[in-house]
Structures are given as C-alpha cells and as structure tokens.
C-alpha cells in the first residue's frame, strides 16, 4: 500500500488529463452530432433508416483498428485530405491530440446516436404535434420538449459516450500514437508499462480507470433509475 502511495507521488499524471480532455471534447462533439443524426434518422422511412442506421453504427461493431485504418487512410499527410488540411489550414491530425479526439469521437459517437434515437422513438408523437398546433417552432419543440422528455436516455447515452471515448485504445494508437504528454492516453500508458513488465504502475492506472468507469455506470443508474421506481419487480 505504501509503495502505491509512493508511486502516486512521482507518477506522470499527464495520461489522465489527456484522457479526460479527450473524453470531454469527444463527448461534446458526439452529443450534438448524435442528437442531430438521431433526429434526422427517425424521420426517414424504414428502408432508408436501416441503411443510414447501419452506417452510423458500424464504428461500434467494427474492431477499432479497422476504424483507425480508415482514419489513417483519410488524414495521413500523404493523402489528399491530409495534404489539404495541412496546406490550407495548417491542421495536422496524425500524431496530434486532434487525432485522439477524432479517433475517440468516431468510436464513441454510435453510443450517443443509438441511445438518443431509442429515446426519441419512445416519445409520444402527440407531444410534438401539440407543440406544432400551439405554434412552437420546430427548433423550440426539439430543445424544449423532445430533448427534456428523452432526458434519461440522452443522459445515459452521454455518459456511455464519455466512458467509451475516454478509454479508446485501438483507433487512437493508430491515428494519434502514444506520444507522452501529447497523445499518451491512460489506456495506451497501461499497455506500454505492461510491455515493460511494470505491473505496479499498470495496476495503479487500472484502479483509476475502474473507479471512473464505475462512477459513470453508477451515475447512469441513478439518473435512469429515478424514473423506474414504479416498475414492478419480477
């Protein structure tokens, strides 16, 4: 135990901050994109829905390395988009923190989108119609009626997105790499120290990840659980 505390004292904490920052930014992006995509998709007919839904969900079911491969293919500085971003805007994606965010967003986005979509589909359509006949704008209906009513589903989607984005490994290691203090996230640090045989440091990071993950899931249960008090046990 004492050696653990000693370890914490001289530890490089940068992976935690990088992971948290990446998680927060990727979650914010996924939140708005996910709500927007969910709103668009539920308006489509059944066929278009299945196709678009399939594409948007793919990053969740594919191995993250496959997503990393595609991201590299797009943003490599030897590829048209990478060259364009670099020359026109001086933006580099590969081996930068931006790469961390991009990888985490792509992988975590489906969780936000799917949860938002499921929550939207549960909403009584009459609420939306009522808003319309009362003269409310579509934007006001969405933000003041739909999103609050879908609140628990959206909240749990947001937390899951954050947890997934924070822990992202596969795509991140391919696109952003593991540059200490820059792109070195917690999950990459764990993999690295294990390769060095430093199980003590790995265990320390594992405990931190466990705590954050548990808090995330516990928070979801608290948020959604409040609405389920009246459900009968069976």
């Amino acid at each position, binding site marked *: 135990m004492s050696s653990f505390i000693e370890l914490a004292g001289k530890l490089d904490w940068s992976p935690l901050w990088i992971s948290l920052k990446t998680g927060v930014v990727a979650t914010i992006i996924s939140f708005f994109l996910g709500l927007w995509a969910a709103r668009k998709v539920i308006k489509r007919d059944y066929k278009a829905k299945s196709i678009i839904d399939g594409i948007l969900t793919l990053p969740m079911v594919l191995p993250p390395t496959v997503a990393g491969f595609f991201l590299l293919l797009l943003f490599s500085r030897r590829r048209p988009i990478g060259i364009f971003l670099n020359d026109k805007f001086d933006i580099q994606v590969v081996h930068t923190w931006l790469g961390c965010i991009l990888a985490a967003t792509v992988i975590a986005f489906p969780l936000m989108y799917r949860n938002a979509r499921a929550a939207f589909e549960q909403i*009584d359509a*009459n*609420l939306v*119609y*009522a*808003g*319309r*006949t*009362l*003269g*409310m*704008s579509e934007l006001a209906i969405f933000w*003041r*009626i739909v999103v*609050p*009513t879908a*609140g628990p589903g959206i909240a749990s989607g947001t937390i899951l997105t954050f947890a997934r984005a924070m822990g992202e490994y596969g795509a991140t290691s391919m696109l952003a790499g593991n540059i200490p203090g820059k792109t070195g996230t917690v999950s990459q640090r764990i993999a690295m120290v294990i390769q060095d045989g430093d199980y003590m440091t790995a265990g320390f990071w594992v405990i931190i990840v466990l705590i954050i993950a548990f808090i995330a899931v516990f928070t979801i249960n608290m948020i959604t659980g409040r609405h389920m008090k009246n459900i009968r046990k069976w």
Partner: protein
Amino acid sequence: MSRLYADIHKRIEGFELDVLIESDAGRIGILGSSGSGKSMTLRSIAGIEDGVSGRIETDGRTLLDSENKINLKPQQRRVGYMFQNYALFPTMSVLGNVTAGLKGSKEDNRARALEMLARFGMAEHAERMPGELSGGQQQRVALARIMVTEPDLILLDEPFSALDGHLRDRMQVEMMEMLEEYPGQVIMVSHSRDELYRFSEELFVLSEGRILRHGETKDVFRNPKTAEAARLTGCKNFADVRALDKNTLEIMDWGVILKLKQEIPEGTSNIGYRAHYFEPVWGQRQENCIEFDLARVDDLPFEKNYYIRTHEDSDASSTDLICWFVQGEVQRQIEEKGMPDWLKLKEEAILFLG
C-alpha cells in the same frame, strides 16, 4: 360569423378518407366508431396529417388548397387541438405548458397564462407538474393551453375517453362552461352519442371514411336515414320491411302489419326502433302490437334490459334478439302486473331507413 369548410381526401393502404364538412354552427360534432377516420379528419384540419389533399378554410382563411399548392404548416393554421391523452409536456410545469406556445415577453406570457388558468380554477396548481394532476385537471390545463393562444378553431379529439366514468359526466358539463366564452367554432369527435347529443348543434355521422348523414343534431337522431347512422346514434333494433300501401308497412320478422297515419317515405326498405320506445300492453291486442317471448333479462342499476324474440323469428340467434329497455314507471308496472302480453310500436318512434 365563423364558417368552416373542409373538403378532405386521404388514401392509405386499405382505407380512404373522403369527407366534406361545411358548417357555420358554433359546436360541431363528428360521430363515428373507432377506425371510421374521425381522428384523421381532425388531424387533417390541424395540419398534422401527411398526404392530405382537398381544401380547408376557416373564416375565409385558406389553410389547405392542394390545387393551388397551398398547405399551411400547423404552426400557421391557428387551430387548437386537444389530444385524447391531452399531450401535456411532461417535463414542464402547468405554467410552462400554458406559456409554451406564446410569443410575447416573459412577464406578459406569465400574466396571460395565469389569468387563463384562474378562469379554469387551476391557478393554484400553476407550479405543479402534469404527472401530479388528476385526469380532469389535466384536461383543464390542456384546454387552457389551447385557449391562451386564441385559435380560430378548436378541435377536441375524444376528450372524455381517458377519464373515469363519474368524472366524465362532470367534465362534459365543465367543458361546455369553459368553452362558453370562446367565440370561434369547436369540433368534437367522439364515438359516444350521449356526449355529442349534449355538445353539438350540428352533427356529422362518419363511417369508413365517409359522411353518412349530417344535419342539426336532434334531427339526425330523430331521422338518421340509414341503418348505419341509426346504429351509431344508438338504435338497437332493425328489421326489414315491405310497404303494402302508402300507410301500411309489414315487418315480416316481427309478424306485424303497421297501420300508420303518416305516409311512408319512399325507398323505405327497413326500419329502426329504439329500445326504450316499446309500449307494454296487457290483455287485448291493440293496433301495431307484436307478440313475443322473453329470451333473457339483464338487471342494471336503474334499468332492466329485456331481450325478446318474436314468434315469426323464433330461431333468432342471441345477437338478433330485439332489445327492450325499461326504466322507472314502466318497470314498476311490470313488477305489479307481470310481463305484458304485447309490445306496441309507437308511430312517432319509428326510424324509416333506406
């Protein structure tokens, strides 16, 4: 004077709606069973149903004119819609619900909403959430939310179906009071003839997407003209008839030849007879009487329902039995003298159907 003109067409798989509602009555009723297209009609007027063609005008304002490619958004139609489940926004307070559709300043909206809530006796509940209200209170909030936006037309979609029986009667009276000061037209759709008889001045009877009959409400009940319309207005007994001459009508299955003072309307092929209108006769057979056997009795709190079979139709199945519903004075007479020997048909109660 406000005037509604709604010529509505919509075709979906297995169903076609084709109705014309034209009326300057203040209170309009649409009577129909479930699946008749009555909610779809209201939704078309409000603009929340897709794929509707035709022409809809209120007060000379065109809401829909598919020939001239006019189709106002629901937001622009100024048509208030009360949903069957009231559709109160669950995450907003009562006050939030009533101010949701208002455009002015925050204080202004608040004042207007509170005034409207006070009119409906709901001001003290302004800060509560919809889930904490009773069904009747929710209905008042839903109506306040509509009225505060000052719509040109108010649509009520089965407004009492979500309420418990005892509350339903009270809310019907309350609803009429709440709407008393509203100057525009109100359309109520329902499957309940009682609600519409009480509420509407003009009645449209809807079945399978078509208007079967329309007219002044009491007139529609007195003379529904078709069997389906008669059934929807609550008529229980139907029989095929044959006119023997201008004033004589044979009801084959009931074994009676009716002698009538009035002329039988041309094209009469069957008649309807309401269950409450048979007159019991003891002893000597009189004119226009039928002979019957009792098949079943249902005891209700304030009424006895007798189900009878005529001699001519003695193999009638249980669904073809003639209904005779008895209350009050007549019921007392039967308790005293026993079952009557004959049932007399009153001429004025006969519905001539084509």
